[in-house]
Structures are given as structure tokens and as C-alpha cells.
């Protein structure tokens, strides 16, 4: 028998409170033991905030694939219109709602098809030499530093430069939109966060909207061979893309195109630093870089709360029937450690094969840029392991309180007496475990 809208399991009060804390102030450094407990004791959890929280692999996968769970309807409730919201901001928020990741079918695939060919292995093939050049130049810039912040010096610059060139957005403007992108991912979509958090995110949306309207106007006069131009052409044809969809999707591309990969580079290196024997193995066997990157994606993925969905009818998840109009989040970081899918899920093992993590999502919203992200991650870690010995951790990093799982910074140093161009995995020191 299925129950409607109630928890079947006996719910530990501390755990319930922890879930609320996790969703409202997610700077928790190690959420995994509590996530595992939630997965075991109350996998279809109705939180005190009203949001349903799914943690089992099968449920996360099923809900993401089930289009009765609407992203568009959920996004409508995230607009955050305030009493004093003026027309200009309302227009920007509407454009935001029209971006690809906030759409259901058939609109989702109509927009996605315009973009997809740029992000296939074939579409990216011509960009590979340039991406390698960008990675090499960024790594050159830290080669003489003994101690540096990997997140700001390497993690961010690489995907930022790559997405700028693909899109046709001047990288010199990144001082502007870099801060807007951070503010918009800081928006808590589960409960809207504080009013200050909401207003900052809205201001970022407005700034982005103005920026891209100006850029689009200029590019209409001087077209290029880039994504902005490609989308402008689709919009000018009339029935393929509206102006709001054009602007919204450009905001999505630049934000999703670098915030996720940038932080995945930081999270990935942090995985290696916490598991020095795995780091040493990767340096010794560079061909493991593909499986190593998949394991980093599984073990410490950047999506934390993800994009909520809204049920458009009563839907069964596990043993519970979720009522129509319910909000739900899928915790992919919990699903990635589900022991019914992954052997020894809490081990970080760079040789893991058939790694079926859900870090790029499943269903129609599977990451548009997964091929690009994987390429950037593999090429960067390959270059790091080729050019540097094992870094050492300078201090235990802290996690940002944002909607993505990201480090504030990752201070690393080269071991004493090492040569930057030569890798010697022998000088490692077990820093923390």
C-alpha cells in the first residue's frame, strides 16, 4: 500500500533538521555521512520546508527522466518577484525563465537542437588545439609560483576563456560577469534564501540581461563565427527562438559554461590531494586520466541541490505517492554513492570502470556541455600531472555556501626542491585523511 504525502519511515528529528540546514546554508564540509543516513532511513523525504528530497540512485534517475516532473513549472515559482520589482527587472527574470534549462518539451528540444551540434565531439574537434593552448597558457602562468590558489588561478580561467571563445564573448569583460555568475549560482532555489541573497541574484540577472542585449545588438551589425551569432540567426528566422529565449540562453551558456567546470577542477584536485596514493597512481599512469575524471565527477560533483522540479500530477516515487504541485530536489551527490549501484561507494578509486554517476543529470536536461566539460577536465588534469609533481595542500579548504558544491579556494604548494617541469611522485606527503 502506498501512503500519500507522508513519510513512512521513522524519521530521526536531528536528521530532519540537518536536511533543512543543508538546503538553506549548504556550506557543510562533509555532508556525505548524513546523506547516506537519509538514503537509508528516509530516501523519499518530505522536508520541513515542504520540498521533497530524493537520494536513492533509482529515484533520482527516474524523476529526472519523468517529464511529469516539470522544470518549467518549478522555475515559475523561483522568479522571486518582490513588491517593488520594476518592469525592467521583470523582463530580465522572464528571459531567465525562458532559458533552456528551465523548459519542458517540446520547447526544450527545439532550443537544444540549435545548440547541440556545437557541443558534440565533432563540433568541438576544431576547437581542441585552441583549448589545449588555453590550458597550457594558464598552467604556464602558475609554473613559477610556489604557493597559489588553484581555484582562482587555474580552475576559473580555463573554462572562462574556452566558453568566451566558443560563444564570441570578449574575455576582457569577465571582470563584469564573473561576479554576476557567482551571485546567480549563489541563489538558493529551494527556499529563495534571504531577501538579500535574492536581491543580489536578481541584480545579477538584470546586469546579465543588459549586457547580452547590448552584445546581441552589436553582433547583429558585425556577425562572427560563434554561438552568439548562431543564436541571433535562429532568432531572426522567427519561429525557432524568441528574443527572451535568446538572451536567457546566452546567460545560461556563460554561467553553466564555466561555474560548473571551474569548481569541478577544484573539487577534482581536492579529491586527489585527499587521496595521495590515487594522485601518485595518476601521475605514474597518465592513461588513467579518463576514469580518474569520471571518479572525480562521481565523488565530489558540483551540482548540490540541483534544479527543482514540480509534479504536474500525483506521482509514485519509491513507496510514496507524491501529491500534484509538489516541489522536489534530486541529490545527485547522494545518488552517486548509492551502495546498490556502486561498489564501495565511499572509496575514491580512479580505476573504477563503468562509472554510472549522475553528475551530468539524466533525462532531457542532461548537461548540454558534458563533452566539453569532460574534455577540459581530462586535458587539464593530464597537463597538471605531466608538468607538476604532487602538490601539497597548504590548508584545509572551506566550502562556499552556494547552490553548487564549490571550494572558496584551494591553496596548494609544490613540494620543496621540486622542479616544475618534472614530475616526481615520490615527494608526496599525506596531508589529511
Amino acid at each position, binding site marked *: 500500500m502506498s501512503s500519500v504525502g507522508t513519510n513512512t519511515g521513522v524519521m530521526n528529528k536531528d536528521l530532519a533538521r540537518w536536511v533543512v540546514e543543508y538546503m538553506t546554508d549548504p556550506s557543510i564540509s562533509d555532508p556525505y555521512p548524513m546523506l547516506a543516513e537519509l538514503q537509508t532511513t528516509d530516501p523519499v523525504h518530505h522536508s520541513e520546508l515542504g520540498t521533497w528530497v530524493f537520494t536513492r540512485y533509482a529515484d533520482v534517475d527516474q524523476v529526472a527522466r519523468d517529464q511529469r516532473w516539470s522544470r518549467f513549472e518549478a522555475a515559475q515559482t523561483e522568479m522571486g518577484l518582490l513588491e517593488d520589482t520594476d518592469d525592467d527587472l521583470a523582463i530580465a527574470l522572464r528571459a531567465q525563465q525562458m532559458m533552456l534549462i528551465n523548459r519542458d518539451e517540446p520547447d526544450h528540444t527545439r532550443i537544444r*537542437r540549435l545548440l*547541440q*551540434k556545437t557541443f*558534440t565531439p565533432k563540433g568541438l574537434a576544431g576547437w581542441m588545439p585552441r583549448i589545449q593552448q588555453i590550458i597550457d597558457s594558464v598552467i604556464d602562468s602558475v609554473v613559477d609560483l610556489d604557493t597559489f590558489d588553484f581555484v582562482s588561478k587555474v580552475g576559473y580561467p580555463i573554462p572562462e576563456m574556452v566558453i568566451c571563445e566558443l560563444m564570441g564573448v570578449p574575455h576582457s569583460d569577465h571582470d563584469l560577469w564573473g561576479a554576476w555568475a557567482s551571485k546567480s549560482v549563489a541563489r538558493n532555489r529551494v527556499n529563495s534564501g534571504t531577501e538579500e541573497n535574492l536581491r543580489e541574484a536578481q541584480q545579477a540577472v538584470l546586469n546579465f540581461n543588459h549586457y547580452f542585449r547590448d552584445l546581441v545588438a552589436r553582433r547583429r551589425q558585425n556577425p562572427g563565427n560563434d554561438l552568439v551569432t548562431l543564436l541571433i540567426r535562429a532568432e531572426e528566422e522567427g519561429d525557432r527562438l524568441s528574443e527572451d529565449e535568446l538572451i536567457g540562453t546566452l546567460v545560461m551558456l556563460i554561467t553553466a559554461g564555466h561555474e560548473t567546470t571551474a569548481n569541478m577542477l577544484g573539487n577534482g584536485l581536492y579529491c586527489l590531494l585527499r587521496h595521495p596514493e590515487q594522485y601518485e597512481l595518476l601521475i605514474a599512469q597518465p592513461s588513467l586520466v579518463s576514469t580518474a575524471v569520471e571518479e572525480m565527477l562521481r565523488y565530489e560533483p558540483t551540482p548540490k541541490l540541483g534544479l527543482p522540479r514540480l509534479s504536474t500530477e500525483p506521482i509514485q516515487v519509491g513507496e510514496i505517492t507524491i501529491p500534484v504541485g509538489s516541489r522536489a530536489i534530486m541529490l545527485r551527490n547522494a545518488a552517486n554513492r548509492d551502495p546498490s549501484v556502486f561498489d564501495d561507494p565511499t572509496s575514491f578509486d580512479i580505476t573504477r570502470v563503468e562509472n554510472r554517476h549522475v553528475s551530468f543529470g539524466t533525462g532531457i536536461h*542532461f548537461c548540454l556541455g*558534458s563533452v566539453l566539460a569532460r574534455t577540459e577536465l581530462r586535458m587539464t588534469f593530464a597537463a597538471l600531472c605531466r608538468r607538476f609533481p604532487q602538490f601539497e595542500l597548504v590548508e584545509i579548504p572551506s566550502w562556499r555556501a552556494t547552490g553548487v558544491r564549490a571550494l572558496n579556494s584551494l591553496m596548494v604548494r609544490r613540494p620543496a626542491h621540486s622542479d616544475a617541469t618534472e614530475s616526481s611522485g615520490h615527494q608526496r606527503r599525506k596531508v589529511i585523511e
Partner: protein
Amino acid sequence: MKIAINTDKCIGSGNCVFTAPDVFDQDEEGRAVVLDASAQPASTVVFAAAGCPVGAITIVEK
């Protein structure tokens, strides 16, 4: 092995090409196509089909 692709469902994620590059390719619009069903081990193809985010790949016969 015979593989069927539902091109209406396919969102062009490229996950199949990523997993089994000798078996799958993508057309101009990014939709998956089968290059050579026998080019890689059957287990790889099964894994690629299971990994399709929208379930657009079906293995018709082994």
C-alpha cells in the same frame, strides 16, 4: 548486434559517442546514428545504451 535509435527522443547528448565512439556517431543536428554495431565489445554497447540519458537506444537483438 542490432541497435535501434529513437531519433525523436534523442536530445543529442553525445553520451553514447563518448562511451562507444566506434559504434555511435552524431548527425548534423547532433542526433545519434549507428556507425558499426559490432565495432566494440557488446558490454560497451550495452553500457552505452543504458547510459543514454533519455533512453533513446534499444538493443534489438544480441
